[in-house]
């Protein structure tokens, strides 16, 4: 069987390819070229995290070691339009975007699936930590990886049945240690390459600079608004350089008051206001989300209790989900901390990923009432 493996140049996708070769498949490595080298990468000042020119070379040398063909696919334009531009524009709206989900939805599990089929492949394999399970009825489920510390199913909630039917994640049943041991056993040159945790086009972690660079490149005249830091009593406690430097729950750049630590409670891009306050004000018992996608095609019933994760690394909180026109109304059984507009809320039932949606804002439930109002931090 001909199988395409999406190879980022990291150890995970290297091992995925190695396992497919070992299983006797005809394996083809594809690496997406998503962007040009940044100035820092060209000057060798920062290690690229994913899909940098060095990673392309690493992917090629792994394929060489495995004796399989390797091709580079130029998705620079698509990546810019589908991922980098929305990323930068989200900050203009005071949101904290999640570009990895967009990349999965629009490139890896859309364009790359089509390309793999065009190459005559029967499957697309990636090095994600997640699992695809085929049900008795022939539909496909997305399930969390066995290694819960590495599980990446959060980023994959947007996968369609069509994409899942074509995709496999061979690392879903392995631990990271097993993956590294396998890389060593297979003699893959990436066996000791550090894990990448950053967003690939922000390898040095300087989000503010990258946002400004993208906005300049796409000719967007607007810039993230500047304004005041305002505490819970409405007092101006300082000025800031742009709303893109703040995310809900952040402490850095906010300062402390005599009463103790303060956190960003909300970002209002329209006025440039950053609301800050004590940590207990970060707690909220509900949220509103948009553009929901459910993998089975059906949303949970209004009385079903599911687990909702509001960011990657969030362990999840029991919640109910109601479809409300174009929105999802998510209510947590216990309050959650720092609901962040722009991030995804992802629902699961045990290890079964049900789907997810994009967070618009948090909202506070009035006990015993159906009507909800936004939390104070966003008013």
């Amino acid at each position, binding site marked *: 069987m001909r199988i395409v493996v999406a190879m980022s140049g990291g150890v995970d996708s290297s091992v995925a390819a190695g396992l497919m070769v070992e299983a006797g498949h005809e394996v083809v490595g594809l690496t997406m070229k998503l962007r040009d080298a940044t100035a820092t990468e060209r000057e060798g000042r920062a290690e690229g995290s994913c899909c940098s020119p060095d990673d392309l070379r690493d992917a090629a040398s792994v394929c060489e070691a495995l004796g399989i063909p390797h091709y580079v696919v130029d998705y620079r334009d698509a990546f810019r339009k589908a991922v980098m531009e929305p990323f930068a524009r989200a900050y203009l709206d005071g949101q904290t975007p999640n570009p990895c989900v967009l990349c999965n939805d629009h490139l890896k599990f859309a364009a790359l699936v089509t390309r793999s*089929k*065009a190459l005559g492949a029967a499957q697309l394999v990636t090095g994600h930590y997640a699992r695809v399970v085929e049900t008795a009825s022939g539909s496909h489920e997305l399930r969390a990886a066995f290694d819960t510390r590495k599980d990446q199913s959060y980023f994959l909630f947007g996968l369609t049945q069509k994409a899942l039917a074509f995709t496999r994640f061979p690392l879903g049943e392995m631990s990271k240690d097993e993956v590294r041991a396998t890389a060593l056993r297979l003699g893959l040159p990436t066996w000791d390459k550090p894990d990448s945790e950053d967003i690939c086009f922000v390898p040095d972690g300087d989000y503010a600079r990258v946002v400004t660079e993208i906005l300049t490149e796409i000719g967007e005249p607007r810039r993230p608004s500047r304004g005041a830091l305002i505490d819970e009593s409405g007092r101006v406690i300082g000025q800031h350089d742009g709303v893109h430097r703040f995310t809900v729950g952040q402490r850095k750049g906010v300062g402390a008051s005599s009463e103790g630590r303060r956190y960003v409670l909300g970002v209002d891009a329209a006025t440039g206001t950053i609301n800050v306050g004590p940590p207990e004000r970060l707690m909220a018992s509900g949220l509103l989300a948009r553009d929901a996608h459910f993998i089975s095609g059906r949303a949970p019933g209004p009385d079903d209790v599911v687990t909702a994760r509001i960011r990657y690394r969030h362990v999840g909180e029991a919640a109910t989900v109601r479809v409300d026109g174009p929105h999802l109304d998510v209510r947590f059984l216990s309050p959650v901390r720092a609901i962040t507009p722009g991030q995804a809320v992802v629902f699961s039932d045990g290890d079964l990923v049900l789907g997810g949606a994009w967070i618009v804002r948090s909202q506070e439930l009035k006990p015993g009432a159906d009507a909800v109002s936004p939390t104070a931090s966003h008013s």
Partner: protein
Amino acid sequence: MIYFDHNATAPIDVEALRVAIATVSAAPANPSSVHAAGRRARAAVERARLQVALALDVKPSELTFTSGATEALHLAVAGLVRSGDHVLISAVEHAAALGACHRVGAQIEVVDVDGFGRLTPEAFARRLRPETRLVIVMRAQNELGNLYPVAEIAAAVAPVPVLCDVTQAFGKIPVRIPELGVRAAVISGHKVGAPSGVGVLYAAPGACTRPVFMGGPQERGRRAGTENVLGIVALGEVCARLDERVKRTHELGPLRDRLADELRARLLGFHEHGDAAARLPNTLSFRLEGLAGDLVLPAMDLEGFCLSSGSACASGSLTPSPVLLALGLSEASAREGLRVSLGQGTTTVEIDRFLDVFPPVVARIRAVLLEN
């Protein structure tokens, strides 16, 4: 594996390489050394220079060995042009020629081609200015296979000197430098079966004496650095049998034409590029509507066929072919470009095999694209 990418690099001429290895083994020395082994290496280099000179119909003293055509172009341009000089260059030149002009800070004016990639002497003559110092035009275009009337262009722009890139023509059609009427010309070893890493600059007496690499007296002070003896000897050996090579390439014409005719008959949206009236016998440049070259190329590679989308350099940089853009194609169409370039070993069986495999692969890709 079936190799249809001879314009990128020709397979090594094993006989020439064998002679080169034997020569270098018998003279394991630096050609600049005064001892016997050094003198033998020097003699081998000079013998090769004579072989290349005979093939090009020029004097050995007019040739400078370089690391390849790119360096030869830089040496030529550096010798003929100074910063600010006006240079006329065809729109379909190799990127190395353009790069060499940028390197010296020339004032570059591009001479456009028509939709078939054709160039006329008048187009160059019209753009001449009093300060024009150089005209650059190739004899054969690497992506399209088009042949250009270099002698006529040289006559039309005289006395402005012409630099001719004969890299792609050399070994495929007869090339006699005196007939071209040019001041300088360049060739590359790996296009004719020598190893990569050797090239030649022809320069008329007194021209192109300004070195780019300095620090040694090699090549009469025009190019410092120890000579690539192995590559030079192999190139010389290839040149000694160049007529056979040209004859064999000529015989590829009917194979190329049959391939083009069959593809046109079998595939929807097939468009051939280039000048049917004047082109290399081995090159077929075409596109298939709606099919990006970067989809077709890997798919055919998996079936064991080596093709290219545009030039090898352009496929590495993943951008639409500048040559196809120069024909007036849109960016999307330029990304659809494919090139089949046949060579010395190409057989009818290989063409048949390609015709068996290519249409079904195209059909599969089109079906997938239609469905998504």
